């Protein structure tokens, strides 16, 4: 499985790409594979300020539903509009077109403290 070196990872199987204080967040290849065919990404927290570990949305696969947890405190600024019509992008391109939200992070150092690709690979293998 592919876990890009330039990303950070959480134990909830999300990836984070940080530029300045703007983080882009999605779920990992491991997560999409475990969930199977994703049919609906339900995120209604756009514009909200949330704490780390708060649920910012849910992802529905054919068989299961799973919560999405915010990796760090901050404000959600954008939800990937492409997922409304094509939630399967999360399966086919989890690190690219399947991204889920962008957020401004209150404290960018919070992201530095997350797992790197090697640590995440160890977690899921």
């Amino acid at each position, binding site marked *: 499985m592919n876990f890009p070196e330039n990303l950070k990872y959480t134990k909830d199987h999300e990836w984070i790409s940080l530029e300045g204080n703007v983080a882009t967040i999605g779920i990992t290849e491991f997560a999409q594979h475990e969930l*199977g*065919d994703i*049919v*609906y990404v*339900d995120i209604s927290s756009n514009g909200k300020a949330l704490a780390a570990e708060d649920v910012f949305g*849910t992802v*529905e696969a*054919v*068989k299961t*539903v799973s919560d999405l947890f915010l990796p760090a405190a901050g404000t959600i600024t954008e939800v990937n509009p492409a997922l409304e019509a094509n939630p399967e992008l999360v*399966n086919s391109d989890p690190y690219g077109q399947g991204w889920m939200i962008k957020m401004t992070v209150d404290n960018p150092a919070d992201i530095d403290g997350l797992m790197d690709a090697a640590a995440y690979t160890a977690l899921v293998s």
Partner: protein
Amino acid sequence: MKNTPFTEKHKALGAKMAEFAGYNMPISYSGINDEHASVRNNAGVFDVSHMGEFIVKGPQALELLQRITTNDVSKLTPGKAQYSCFPNNDGGIVDDLLVYCLEDNNSYMLVVNASNIEKDWNWIQSFNTNSVEMHNISDKTCLLAIQGPNATKILQPLTQVDILNLKYYTFEKGTFAGVDNVLISATGYTGSGGVEIYFEDKDGAADKVWDAIFSAGAAQGIKPVGLGARDTLRLEMGFCLYGNDIDDTTSPIEAGLGWITKFTKDFNSKEIFEKQKSDGADKKLVGFEMVEKGIARQGYEIKDFEGAAIGRVTSGTQSPTLGKAIGMGYVDKQFAAIDSEIFVSIRNTLLKAKVVKMPFA
């Protein structure tokens, strides 16, 4: 956790495996939507060897089965099968099952849910006062379901049994892929046609049959299908799943299974069901589709427009065929009519749904 004779095949195919009813079972291979489409449009193979099989035989077998099941077993002749259920004594359902008539009035095979094998066995025994002979052949019996519009065409070269013309809910025994005494049954849980085949796992029969099916279907693109797609396929047809849509507390009348409940004979809970049928049951199992975006899941509450509880979701999924969210659930009888507006509580939000006819697809 038990394995089936096909577990190594599933692993070699890269299946996602999980425990189901005490068995290590394949949940999906290529993905639920892909497997689902394969059965609807072509052909797919399910290992459902976890299911339970009992042989019930002897001169008093019919009398015993008539007492403990709702459908009329006396209508069966050798080579015919019927869907039925075991009612408990309180108007609920112990399990649903298939009854196969092997010999007239004398020998039957019951096919029950894997999760209920022990419960069913004990239940039947508690009514077996005439010492009817019973054998639990679950552990040595392989069961493969080959389903889909092209299934029988693919399988026909493997057997002399005329499976292309085998009528729904009939069966024949014959040689299949060189294995003797295979029971080939025109039944299934998908609504897409095909057969289910039962045979004993001995002398490498399991491998032989599995390999023959996949090589016969290779050109046609036959695929292995897991329990995930088995669930979406049966739900699109409105088929009940024990433990979800029917259980010890629901009656066949409430569940829309009046058609397998025959009041021309005596059986457990008959009087309760007769009363429900004549007076109308207080709750009814209905099919619904989501009008507002969301996916209903088992256990979610169903409410009216004012937010008052009127029922509960028993099964729900995104329908791969229709591309919309569908479900089944029990609702108070005044909400059971087609087109009734109901609301499903999904993560504390009431989302609109409407009652629709089943099958869904």
